[in-house]
């Protein structure tokens, strides 16, 4: 049966009407001057930690592999500047785990590794091997190694390009779509060909008319696709449209079963920056060494998107953005709905970062929670059809069985429930705790 393209998105559940704050969407990306030093953690993805392949005193080129792991679910890490390794040390990542990190003092030359050349791709194996070698992880924020996702032979009929970018403030994908739209299409055709995908849906929220305009036009005009199997779908601006399962539902009407992946319903979801990078990599062979990151928030003086070498200290990029407009009280890696609050601004930029937000006193202030009034807003806003207030109660009782029965592991922590809660309940925090109880109980059920 021929797959058709939906005229409008399929209905999804719940969600939240979050403010957009896309302040930086019309400002061209600026390239950060080469930093003096970068700190490159060996864990910038979901999966096994990498082991450093260099030691103190080694000279490294830009793009040289400096960390890798034997595990399948992992992604190698590359030097983002040329220079000398000044230390291999432990640092604490924003999530709280400790990781090795390679510190490189830049020689300012940005001298690329001479062994870098475009990969030769003749088969799916070549392709996934090349993707792994590129160090690509899901650049939307999750950081899932891309080669794992792409290794789905024969299963995929629909490729969905995620340009929803539903998090407030974040515009890194928006700028990628505008500034690198040619590569987006190149990446799409590369994946479409190698996986034999029948249709490609580029999903964009309707608050980005310029992206919809430009991508629709070049996708329509492209000679590689005379029958228009690559099309743009305009989504409603309703958080969290960009969450993988929600996006699959909005684009295809298919619902990913509990514990399964989009591939199980024939879909592959790739972030728009990831797919553009993939095209650039296939063309040049330069692995993932730099990232476009949105710097915004009330405490950033000149909000903008900055193209930074991975491992650059956040404080350095903030300086580049005019410094702090007011003393920062809260800093986030990622958007305000799902981002991680950082302990300080000396942390390095990671591969999967798409935004660094700094907020002053007003936004950082925490509201005290009050009693749940059973208004049901958390239930109505859950895209995964859960009952967050019940999950909170069962977490308090440590009732693992009920937590599982109520689908706690289905929660993706999008935060729509807590956003809408009039009693300021810390629903996501409770659910995270509840999940840890379930994991700890492990085999019990």
């Amino acid at each position, binding site marked *: 049966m021929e797959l058709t393209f939906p005229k409008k998105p399929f209905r999804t559940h719940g969600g939240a009407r979050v403010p957009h704050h896309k302040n930086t969407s019309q400002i061209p990306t600026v390239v950060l001057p080469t930093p003096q030093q970068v700190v490159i953690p060996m864990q910038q993805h979901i999966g096994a930690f990498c082991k450093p392949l260099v030691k103190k005193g080694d000279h490294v080129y830009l793009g040289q592999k400096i960390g890798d792991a034997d595990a399948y679910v992992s992604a190698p890490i590359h030097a983002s500047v040329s220079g000398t390794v000044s230390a291999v040390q432990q640092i604490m990542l924003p999530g709280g785990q400790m990781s090795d990190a390679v510190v490189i003092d830049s020689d300012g030359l940005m001298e690329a590794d001479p062994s870098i050349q475009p990969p030769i791709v003749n088969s799916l194996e070549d392709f996934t091997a090349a993707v792994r070698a590129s160090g690509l992880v899901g650049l939307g924020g999750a950081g899932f190694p891309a080669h794992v996702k792409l290794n789905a032979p024969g299963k995929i009929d629909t490729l969905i390009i995620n340009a929803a970018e539903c998090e407030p403030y974040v515009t890194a994908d928006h700028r990628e779509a505008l500034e690198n739209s040619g590569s987006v299409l190149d990446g799409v055709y590369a994946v479409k060909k190698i996986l034999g995908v029948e249709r490609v849906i580029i999903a964009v929220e309707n608050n980005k008319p310029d992206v919809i305009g430009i991508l629709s036009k070049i996708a329509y005009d492209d000679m590689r696709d005379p029958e228009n199997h690559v099309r743009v779908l305009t989504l409603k601006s309703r958080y969290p449209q960009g969450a993988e399962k929600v996006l699959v539902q909005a684009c295809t009407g298919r619902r990913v079963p509990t514990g399964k992946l989009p591939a*199980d319903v024939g879909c592959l979801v790739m972030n728009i920056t990831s797919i553009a990078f993939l095209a650039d990599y296939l063309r040049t062979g330069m692995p993932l060494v730099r990232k476009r990151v949105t710097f915004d928030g009330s405490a950033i003086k000149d909000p903008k998107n900055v193209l930074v070498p991975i491992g650059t200290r956040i404080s350095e990029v903030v300086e580049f953005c005019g410094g702090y407009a007011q003393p920062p009280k809260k*800093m986030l890696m990622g958007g305000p709905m799902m981002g991680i609050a950082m302990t300080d601004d000396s942390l390095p930029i990671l591969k999967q970062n798409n935004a660094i937000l700094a907020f002053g006193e007003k936004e950082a202030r925490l509201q005290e929670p009050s009693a749940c009034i059973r208004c049901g807003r958390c239930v109505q806003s859950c895209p995964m059809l859960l009952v967050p207030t019940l999950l909170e109660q069962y977490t308090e009782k440590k009732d693992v069985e009920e937590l599982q029965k109520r689908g706690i592991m289905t929660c993706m922590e999008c935060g729509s429930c807590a956003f809408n809660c009039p009693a300021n309940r810390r629903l996501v925090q409770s659910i995270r705790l509840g999940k840890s109880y379930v994991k700890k109980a492990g085999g019990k059920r």
Partner: protein
Amino acid sequence: MEKLIVSSSPHLRSGASTQRIMLDVIIALCPALIASFVFFGPRALILVAVTVLSCVLSEYISRKVMKRDNTVPDLSCIVTGLLLAFNLPVSLNPLMAVFGGVVAIVVVKQMFGGIGQNFVNPALTARIILMNSFPADMSSWTPAFGWLNGTDATTTATPLAVLKQGGEFNFSYLDLFLGSTGGCLGETCARALILGGVYLMVRRVISPVIPVTYLATVTVISLIAGRDPLVDLLTGGLMIGAFFMATDYTTSPISRNGRIIYAIGCGLFTMLIRMFASLPEGVSYSIVLMNILVPLIERVSLPKPFGSRKGDGVK
């Protein structure tokens, strides 16, 4: 660099608060409050003031005695006070109203843990207790505008009582819609209550699910039973019940499907009582009965997690 605040996501909130929700309910009740003054005079306002004060003091004192934080600022006790007063006849002895307020807040609400924890609607339960404690006082109705033409010492029958006793029903639809009939002080004016209900829906404080289902059920049963659905809709406590009582968050189901079941039940019992019981009116009892059934309704109506339902996983 100063210390940064580290907390769990999300780091953005909608700005909704319990206090703002309760304030919206109070605003929504204002048209009915004005109507009660127009129809029943200054005595109505005095009774409202006394009842609200009783509820506020009960809330404050009981929290204090239990050594818990003061929850008066969330304004829910004012809502309870207003709703209770709206369910009383204007001629009621204010001391009885005070008693009602204490029952609503201390017994029904705080003894079960305060806001969000009571299993039945405090105002309605207090009204039922008052009806059973002082049946004569609770069913002596003053004519509308009686305070203007000096007939406020006399009593009249509510439209539903007239229907039940088989007397001559001489109320026009307009009388019923505007509320110029005998009845509890806040329940007679359908116009004011619908206005308040629409405000709550526009402000998204309540969803239309419960009121619409409740009113639709009443209409359908009334039609089937060969009664006049407009009379059934516009009389008694149905409008205040459907928009303000049945929609009480704490005592109604949390999910949409649950709310539909619950509202159908409210409509069904309201009509059963009106048609077959010795009481003329059944809104209070039907809502409280459905309140009690909420845990059972939830057992069958809570949504099933995404990905675990029929049809999930189909290409």
